[in-house]
């Protein structure tokens, strides 16, 4: 029988990190599902890039994939903070339920829901009724001017366009490399991880990249405009590619 595990917790608590430790194992088929954001999921893309042997399942394919799972399969459902813990879909699967929670959080809906609690990052759990909004957009084909990207990330995470508690992004740079960027409010610094992908040095990359911002009062249009202003023109990109 396939094994289903649902993992939930507040934004930035370390759900994806917790799942990633098991995805290194290639001995049995593994599946990763991250519902809620459709095709524009940074986690889905990052897991796909980092663990190419894992089958990442977009929401549109979920029903078909679940209907045809091998017996030894393990399916990880990353259940975002914005999704209903009482979902009949989850209940119907008979999932093992794991909550990744800040160590100082002792009482919450996640505690009631979970079969077991794992200590995660010491992030602030959102107060009831004040759940943050999530804004995401694909950036596929966009290649960033590196100093502009640095400014953009500093401004977005610094609160220039609303209060941000989480930012995840996959960004393409003119040297052909792609980076995963991760910011969690309350944790030190911003994490930059180069993705293990072949350098893209011919034209605009067609592989997925994008950004996901979680917070309150997000000025989506201003963020989008800043993203556009930070992207390289065809001429500038071609000049970079000739150099590399």
């Amino acid at each position: 029988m396939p094994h289903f595990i649902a993992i939930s917790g507040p934004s930035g608590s370390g759900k994806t990190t917790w799942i990633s430790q098991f995805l290194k194992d290639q001995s049995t088929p593994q599946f990763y599902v991250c519902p809620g954001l459709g095709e524009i999921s940074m986690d889905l893309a990052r897991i796909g890039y980092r663990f190419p042997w894992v089958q990442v399942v977009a929401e549109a394919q979920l029903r078909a994939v679940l209907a045809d799972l091998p017996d030894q399969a393990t399916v990880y459902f990353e259940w975002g903070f914005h999704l209903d813990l009482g979902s009949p879909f989850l209940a119907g699967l008979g999932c093992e339920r794991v909550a990744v929670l800040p160590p100082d959080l002792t009482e919450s809906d996640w505690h009631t829901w979970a079969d077991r609690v794992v200590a995660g990052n010491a992030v602030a759990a959102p107060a009831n009724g004040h759940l943050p909004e999530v804004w995401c957009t694909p950036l596929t084909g966009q290649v960033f001017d590196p100093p502009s990207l640095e400014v953009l990330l500093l401004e977005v995470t610094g609160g220039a366009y609303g209060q941000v508690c989480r930012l995840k992004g996959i960004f393409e740079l003119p040297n052909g490399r792609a980076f995963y960027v991760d910011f969690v409010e309350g944790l030190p610094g911003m994490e930059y991880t180069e993705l293990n992908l072949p350098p893209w040095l011919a034209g605009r990359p067609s592989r997925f990249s994008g950004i996901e911002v979680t917070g309150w009062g997000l000025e989506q249009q201003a963020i989008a405009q800043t993203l556009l202003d930070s992207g390289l023109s065809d001429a500038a990109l071609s000049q970079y590619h000739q150099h590399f």
Partner: protein
Amino acid sequence: MKLAVISCIHGNYEALNAVLSDIDTHRADQIYCLGDLAGYGPHPNAVVELVRSLDIPTCQGCWDEDIVEGLNACECSYPSQLAEKRGHLAHEWTNRAIHPEVRKYLATLPMTLRQDNLCFVHGSPNSQHEYLLPSMDGFAALERVLSAEADVLFCGHTHVPYLRELDNGTLSVKVQQPGQGETQHQFTAPLKRIVNAGSVGEPRHGRPNATYVLYDTDSAQVTLREVPYDYAKTCAAIIEQGLPPIFAWRLARGMEFAERADDPGHVCER
């Protein structure tokens, strides 16, 4: 004699008023201004009118030049594509807002001002656009001061105030002319100083406070001043005037960034 040196006001009337009040309390005998009266800030005309009304000797800054002559960028102008786009927005806004007589006044400003052994410039004696960063190569820095024929060179443009002392300035020059042997000359330069006044209206030192410099010509004492002011008023005016709101956000954090200041080896080619 006590001098006050101010620079890079960038249309920030509130900051200029606060700095002038601070100068009053320190009883400066003379004020010099190193330019960049306009650009980014919401009150370029009022700033120019105030500086003119007080007869403050002023040299031309890079933004003042751009308002007179139009944009003519060297690659050193902006540290990023994003900064360049925002800089152009600020230029277009200022270009529309500036009064004709203010533009005429900016066109009359000299590149350099002098008082005895002191020289006042916006960027460097070479150009309003060149940065004299504290990390600049010592030889190049000394060359800039010597070319100004001064003992103390006052500059702005970087928006971060500093004092740099250039001592032990020994220069060796070898000359070989056709048909003649090589000759070597040595020059010893006396102590030279570069004093950067920072920025009144657009600080870049991580706090919103205005900065300027006091200089005592008798004791040669340099005092870097940091002056708090009601920056929220300027931020509100930035938004009211239709300038990009991100300018207000950055001003409130002392994060001015719109021009490059991270390449000490770069020589401006304008």
